[in-house]
């Protein structure tokens, strides 16, 4: 993407792509070009990029309603994703999934999910498959700190622990669950601390520092692959936008929001790149411009595509049974 590439520059590029993608998606949603519900992860790009960059191509990712970044960071195509958000027939899910259900199983992306907590048992199941079939694939479950209060979290983490599965449990702690400050919904707001009750290792990481996330993930994923069982990562971050696009966020203290914006993950990484001399400001600008251009092209393409053929509504409900043996 950029002419000379280093690990951090690649991570920066991924973040730039997510930033460009969701910035435009938010606008397109506001303008009524994208239907349904849209939840953006603007401000949280370092988590997606840091994790995605440390995974193997064939690793599994199960995510949430806020999953665009995780999908892009795991290699999903911008064109197919954008077309899906536009509800086009050529969308990656033929217009039947949308933002809340975007998926690309061929790439190991088991999908966004509109049920809070559902990503955890599904990822644990993918980890079972990997272990059973000896594939050495890691299954990542993304979930928010609000999802930790779901029974599904509790049950799934325990299963991953007792079955010693290659499951990487990634909690994106962005402080809020919808309009609620999650610190008011648990006496022990630290998700990593709660992991102790399951006997699994966990670590807190600065979710706005892509390099830190990447380093921790590489190590944690390695542990999983070595058969040392599940690992929980709590990435501390913050969502810039509302819970859904259109949420005016009266519940957020201005100072809090401002202080987090000052730690823009792209700035944090960009500053380090400049300091290290890996690239100059121009190069970084170019990377962001290229990302923006790629997104713009995907938008133009999506706009030009037709809605799904009416027959799509009735396709893919059941698979054909093989002739009984």
């Amino acid at each position, binding site marked *: 993407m950029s002419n000379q590439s280093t690990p951090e520059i690649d991570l920066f590029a991924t973040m730039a792509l997510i930033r460009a993608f969701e910035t435009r998606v938010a606008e397109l949603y506001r303008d009524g070009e994208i239907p*349904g*519900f849209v939840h953006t992860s603007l401000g949280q790009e370092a988590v997606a990029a840091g994790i995605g960059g440390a995974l193997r191509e064939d690793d599994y990712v199960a995510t949430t309603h806020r999953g665009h970044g995780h999908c892009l960071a795991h290699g999903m195509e911008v064109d197919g994703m954008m077309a899906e958000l536009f509800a086009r027939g050529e969308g990656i899910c033929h*217009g039947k999934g*949308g933002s*809340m259900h975007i998926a690309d199983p061929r790439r190991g992306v088991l999908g966004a999910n509109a*049920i809070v907590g559902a990503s955890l048992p599904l990822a644990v199941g993918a980890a079972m498959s990997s272990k059973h079939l000896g594939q050495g694939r890691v299954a990542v479950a993304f979930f928010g700190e609000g999802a930790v209060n779901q029974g599904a979290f509790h049950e799934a983490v325990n299963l991953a622990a007792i079955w010693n599965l290659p499951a990487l449990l990634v909690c994106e702690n962005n402080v809020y669950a919808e309009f609620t400050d999650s610190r008011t919904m648990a006496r022990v707001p630290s998700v990593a601390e709660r992991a102790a009750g399951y006997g699994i290792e966990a670590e807190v990481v600065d979710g706005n520092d892509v390099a830190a996330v990447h380093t921790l993930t590489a190590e944690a994923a390695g542990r999983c692959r070595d058969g040392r069982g599940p690992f929980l990562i709590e990435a501390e971050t913050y969502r810039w936008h509302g819970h859904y696009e259109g949420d005016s966020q009266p*519940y957020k203290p201005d100072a809090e929001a401002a202080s987090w914006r000052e730690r823009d993950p792209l700035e944090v990484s960009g500053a380090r790149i400049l300091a290290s001399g890996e690239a100059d400001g121009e190069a970084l600008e170019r990377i962001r411009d290229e990302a923006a251009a790629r997104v713009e092209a995907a938008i133009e393409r999506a706009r030009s595509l037709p809605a799904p053929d009416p027959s799509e509504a*009735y396709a893919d409900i059941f698979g054909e049974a093989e002739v009984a043996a």
Partner: protein
Amino acid sequence: MSAETAVAPSRYIDALNEGMARAIEEDERVVLIGIDVGAGGGIFRVTKGLHERFGSERVIDAPISEMGYVGAAVGAAMTGLRPIVEIMFMDFVGVCMDPILNQAAKLRYMTAGALEIPIVFRMQTGAGKAAGAQHSQSLEAWFAHVPGLKVVMPATVADARDLLLASVRDPNPVVFVENRRLYGSKGDIDAEPLPLGKARVADAGSEVTVVTWGQMLRRCLEAAGEEGGPSLEVIDLRSLAPLDMETILASTRKTGRLLIVHEAVQDFGAGAEIAARVGDELFDELRTPVRRLGSPAVPMPFSPDLESALLPTSKAISAAARALVAEG
């Protein structure tokens, strides 16, 4: 009851809000529990202002723990409170069915009446907004199949308030199904409220009886208003349990034809029960077969085009009605 209101609410959503406000006001045992129903005013703003007005003792924000807080609400109902508990989307009963199915619906019976469980499970549905397969389901038939539950589906502004109040005052567990597509709908409220359990003739007619509920009521009324179409008697069922067969049978006897329209998947949906009963009880009086019009057996797709093609339209409703008249 409307006499009590200075200014009657004009929108369905405001009527729900006023119904809850009144319930909380008139009975100190009533509490409202749900995710973001408090300070946040509700994800759809249905509970706006209630937290400010009644405080966090009466309007309680819950964590994302439906199994826990719905179950706790049932326990509270068993011990002296009268909770209104919100399940944000009907689809989410997938994570909290036990307290409804195995606790609230059965504990009065299993204790020979020693336990009373006055609770309202507010849940919201309504396809047609590209919310996708996990946020668009109408599962009222599930609850109607469970002995011990009442199932209420307000379709009008008046019922949004009055059926909610009746549900809170009811000593039994009530599944109260709001339709998000109606939140912005307007209507009058100054009629004497019909009791919970009675269906309402929303539009009188002579040729085809149309039984419906929820957001489909509007489309049925549109069909009834269609120029040159057959004369439809539209019945707003209002509740599936109790099921007001009297009103359905009386109208169908008169018209000799019955069409049942609902948003939910048609197969094994609530319309089947009504069709089966009428087909049995009016076997000799029906001029034509009882017909149903629901959504096809398809998970609701995200694409607005695909989605709207799956939901019964007023066109499809009047076509079905015309077909019946043509048949006999």
